[in-house]
């Protein structure tokens, strides 16, 4: 028994099932783009929090260890005199070696002169005036360089933002392609059911009723396709994240998607379904306005 929803019997048509596959594939693409952008943006936020208030001062490498130690002491004095700085510690040679290891490998570094590093922390809520600090360091220690990692972080954040823009463009392109495919399929369906559509008109159906029939059929196909596509995309993202972090090949921590991230990915099928239904509805209204 057919309910009030199926006057045209569209749910029986096999001719338009391919639309579920197209929408599924497009949803997979959107999910991957969105997942990548969300991970990078989460990583950016985490790094920004990690580097918040961290300041590193580098004293250049020198053959004369005693002279370098004196410079470190002078730099520490400058740093500790800054009211915005809570504490400042010189990192030992072992720690500096450990930090450089990823770049220099495990070669014995004892013979090499290394730059000395000072790790300083800003007071909570206080802002260190980096140019002023650098000027004071210049006056006290030749060659000392203060760095709050802002430039490096800004570079990464710009990358995350770019990924966000790419994801947005991919999602928009995917939505347009989905709307186009559904529009094409809907026009074919309208031609196929032309007689039944005429009959519906003759028994008093408004164009909106007929458009609703096609929108409902498109919605059903798009929901099935996009749910599968987004699910496949989510699996790919989870596996890719697990592989990337397990191999230890990443030089930085890549946080897994959080709840909000997964929720955003859940919006992909919802959006795809809405786009498909709206496209079918608008296509039918436009086509019917041209006939009779």
């Amino acid at each position, binding site marked *: 028994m057919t309910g009030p929803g199926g006057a045209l019997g569209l749910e029986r048509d096999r001719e338009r099932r391919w639309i579920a596959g197209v929408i599924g594939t497009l949803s997979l693409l959107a999910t991957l783009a969105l997942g990548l952008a969300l991970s990078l943006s989460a990583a950016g936020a985490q790094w920004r929090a990690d580097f918040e208030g961290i300041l590193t001062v580098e004293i250049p490498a020198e053959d004369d260890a005693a002279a370098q130690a004196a410079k470190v002491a002078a730099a520490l004095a400058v740093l500790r005199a800054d009211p915005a700085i809570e504490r400042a510690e010189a990192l030992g040679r072992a720690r500096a070696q450990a930090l450089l290891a990823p770049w220099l490998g495990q070669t014995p570094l004892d013979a090499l002169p290394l730059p000395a590093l000072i790790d300083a922390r800003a007071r909570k809520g206080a802002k260190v005036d980096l140019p002023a600090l650098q000027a004071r360091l210049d006056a006290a220690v030749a060659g000392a360089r203060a760095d709050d990692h802002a430039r490096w972080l800004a570079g990464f954040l710009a990358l995350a933002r770019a990924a966000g823009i790419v994801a947005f463009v991919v999602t928009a392109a995917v939505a347009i392609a989905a709307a186009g495919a559904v529009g094409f399929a809907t026009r074919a369906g309208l031609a196929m059911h032309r007689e039944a559509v005429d009959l*519906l*008109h003759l028994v008093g159906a408004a164009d909106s009723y007929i458009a609703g029939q096609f929108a409902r059929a498109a919605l059903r196909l798009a929901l099935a396709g996009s749910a599968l596509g987004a699910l496949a995309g989510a699996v790919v993202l989870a596996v890719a994240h697990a592989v990337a972090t397990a191999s230890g090949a990443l030089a930085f921590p890549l946080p897994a998607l959080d709840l909000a991230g997964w929720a955003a990915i859940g919006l992909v099928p919802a959006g795809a379904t809405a786009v498909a239904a709206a496209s079918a509805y608008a296509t039918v209204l436009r086509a019917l306005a041209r006939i009779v």
Partner: protein
Amino acid sequence: MVIFERVGLRYGLGPEVLRDVSFALPPGSLHFLTGASGAGKSSLLSLLYLARRPSRGTVQLFGRDVAGLARADFPALRRQIGVVFQDFRLLDHLSVLDNVALPLRVQGIDDAQVREHAAELLVWVGLGDHLDAFPPTLSGGQKQRVAIARAVIGRPRLLIADEPTGNVDDRIAVRLMRLFEELNRLGTTIVIATHNLQLVRESRHPELRLEAGTLARAVKGAA
């Protein structure tokens, strides 16, 4: 209710299949429309149920000139018109009950109420035990009665029937005719196109006769 004034109709670039057709159907009347095959009966009726607009002349329906109607005006007017098509035009993928319910469903009218009403009508036309059948499994006469039930379910002000007794035996034809007269007594204006001249002769209702696209002078006192 309906006024035709010097109406002409042609299909595409073809010849006029209706020429200078003028008549009026007063509210509450019942008319037969007769004429040889190809005389233009179905064409004339299609103007009445708003499937086409006349090529020339004016058609007035419920006091409105059809030429002045906007697309959005059609559904409301068509809901006041019930049509039994010569070729039935049942939807094969819908059950008999759903076919009959269609005119109400497209208006978004409540399901349980519609089902009940459709079932009653089907009992009335003698198809009470075919509610769940599908049209392809029905005989011509059965399809015709489904089409009639569908035409009347919306309680139309104007009922248009194209050969409604063409596929049934005389006994059912008489019964269907009584059904139409009953509806007419309740106030429905009715036009019945038919080849069945005996049906027309036995009835006290007026006849409009089409001859090759023109209306012959009214017989039996038609307006």
